[in-house]
């Protein structure tokens, strides 16, 4: 019954989690929130993480009711993500692994999301829509790899939403996406925006430029409200995501869809995906904000699978990497 400690800090959330045999024993997390109209920069984010990570570690152990002796393996996010924050977390993982004399494992952040999604929902072999501030991919498992069927060719959907929130000076607390979602519920008018699906892939940077431009004009003339713009942006980008997910599901003959990543918390996105799944006779799976949003336990869970399958990372190879493709990892723990 191995227990794995997981460290996550690739963006503005820092989390430490403990997982043992499919049970999440602890999952404390902190979020670095910047003022409205601004985003989070690597150096400041790393500073935030450094200030709280050791306290989070203690919190996790206390919540799990475990000591260092009960932990069998230390897992940390190897990538992808922002450099300085990744490094800040990795140095602690390496130090803890040495102090406690435990093996260490570098985990792919995207795979962390997928494995936690599978664990929590019980989905057997879903087509995965992974959508966050940093990533947008449609993934399906085949022959020991999580294969990327479709993805953004420029920015992530969450990045599009977050940067649009800055234009309207929408609060980043608890997250810009959450506040856009609340405003969108009060939107009444659909503003036509570019719709950019490219085969299996999607593109968001053009939509962002367009809506940034349109926002200035239309809000000045009173042609629409900020709520209308939030509503229109969500409807457009989410429809695009539903389309490419459906395309992958049709290709694979898949009867299950799983949404992971911070944007997966969005209830409107879940509604639209549910409609598509019902039309296909497929089942939709999603997790709540404890696990959708970046967290330590998802790294611990992926680490647990890797540990059980015999993976080990020598300390000298525990670097971080800002670009780490989901399909680079050999998924030896699945058939």
């Amino acid at each position, binding site marked *: 019954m191995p227990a794995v400690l997981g460290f996550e800090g690739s963006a503005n959330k820092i989390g430490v989690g403990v997982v043992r045999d499919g049970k999440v024993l602890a999952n404390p997390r902190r979020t670095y929130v910047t003022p409205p109209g601004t985003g989070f920069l690597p150096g400041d984010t790393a500073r935030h993480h450094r200030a709280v990570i050791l306290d989070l570690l203690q919190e996790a152990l206390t919540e799990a009711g475990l000591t260092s002796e009960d932990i069998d393996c230390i897992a940390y996010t190897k990538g992808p993500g922002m450099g300085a924050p990744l490094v800040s977390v990795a140095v*602690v993982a390496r*130090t803890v692994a040495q*102090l406690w004399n435990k093996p260490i494992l570098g985990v792919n952040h995207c795979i962390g999301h997928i494995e936690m999604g599978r664990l929590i929902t019980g989905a057997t072999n879903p087509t995965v829509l992974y959508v966050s501030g940093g990533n947008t991919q449609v993934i399906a498992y085949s022959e020991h790899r999580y294969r990327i069927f479709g993805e953004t060719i420029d920015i992530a959907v969450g990045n599009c939403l977050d940067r649009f929130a800055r234009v309207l000076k929408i609060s980043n607390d608890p997250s810009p996406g959450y506040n856009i979602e609340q405003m969108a519920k009060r939107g009444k008018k659909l503003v036509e925006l570019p719709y950019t699906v490219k085969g299996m892939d999607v593109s968001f940077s053009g939509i962002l430029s367009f809506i940034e431009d349109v926002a200035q004009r239309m809000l000045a003339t009173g042609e629409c409200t900020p709520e209308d713009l939030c509503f229109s942006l969500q409807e457009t980008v989410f429809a695009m995501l539903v389309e490419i997910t459906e395309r992958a599901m049709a290709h694979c003959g898949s009867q299950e869809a799983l949404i992971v990543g911070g944007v997966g918390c969005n209830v409107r996105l879940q509604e639209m995906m549910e409609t598509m799944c019902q039309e296909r006779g497929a089942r939709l799976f999603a997790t709540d904000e404890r696990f959708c949003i970046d967290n330590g336990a998802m790294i611990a869970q992926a680490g647990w699978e890797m540990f059980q399958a015999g993976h080990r990372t020598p300390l000298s190879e525990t670097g971080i990497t800002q670009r780490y493709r989901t399909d680079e990892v050999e998924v030896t723990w699945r058939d």
Partner: protein
Amino acid sequence: HATAMQASGGGAGGAEGRDDQHSSRTPACQSGSGSAEGEDVHRAPEGRGGPGRGRAVIEAAVARPGGDTLRVPFQLPLEADMARRSLLPDAQRHQGLIRKEFAVNGSDLLVRWTAEDLAFIRLSMNPFLDQLSLVIQNIQSLGPPPRQSLS
């Protein structure tokens, strides 16, 4: 243009020779006084330390320009080596512009920067000191490392 700062021949041994000369003039328990001209003595906050560990005061003596090595004393050789292994994997980043080399001498961690431009060294040192500070706090907060038969 800035002259290149090269590691002196003989690696850590050469640097150690120069550092001894500086460190003897910077007594551990005084801040500032006794520092040689052009030297910077930075005192990190005291560690929490468990019973029996005493105060863990980290003193980092940054040699003046022309010198190139940071010396960080730890309580035990094992701790210095642990810090080295925790910080080394990230040293490979940005290797085109700046090179960081680590060595352990007794219970001291030695870090040497080499770059064509002094500005790169300054840019590298600041985040590095932050990561180092975190490793030190980490070691202090989790208590003494398990006894290992490492030399």
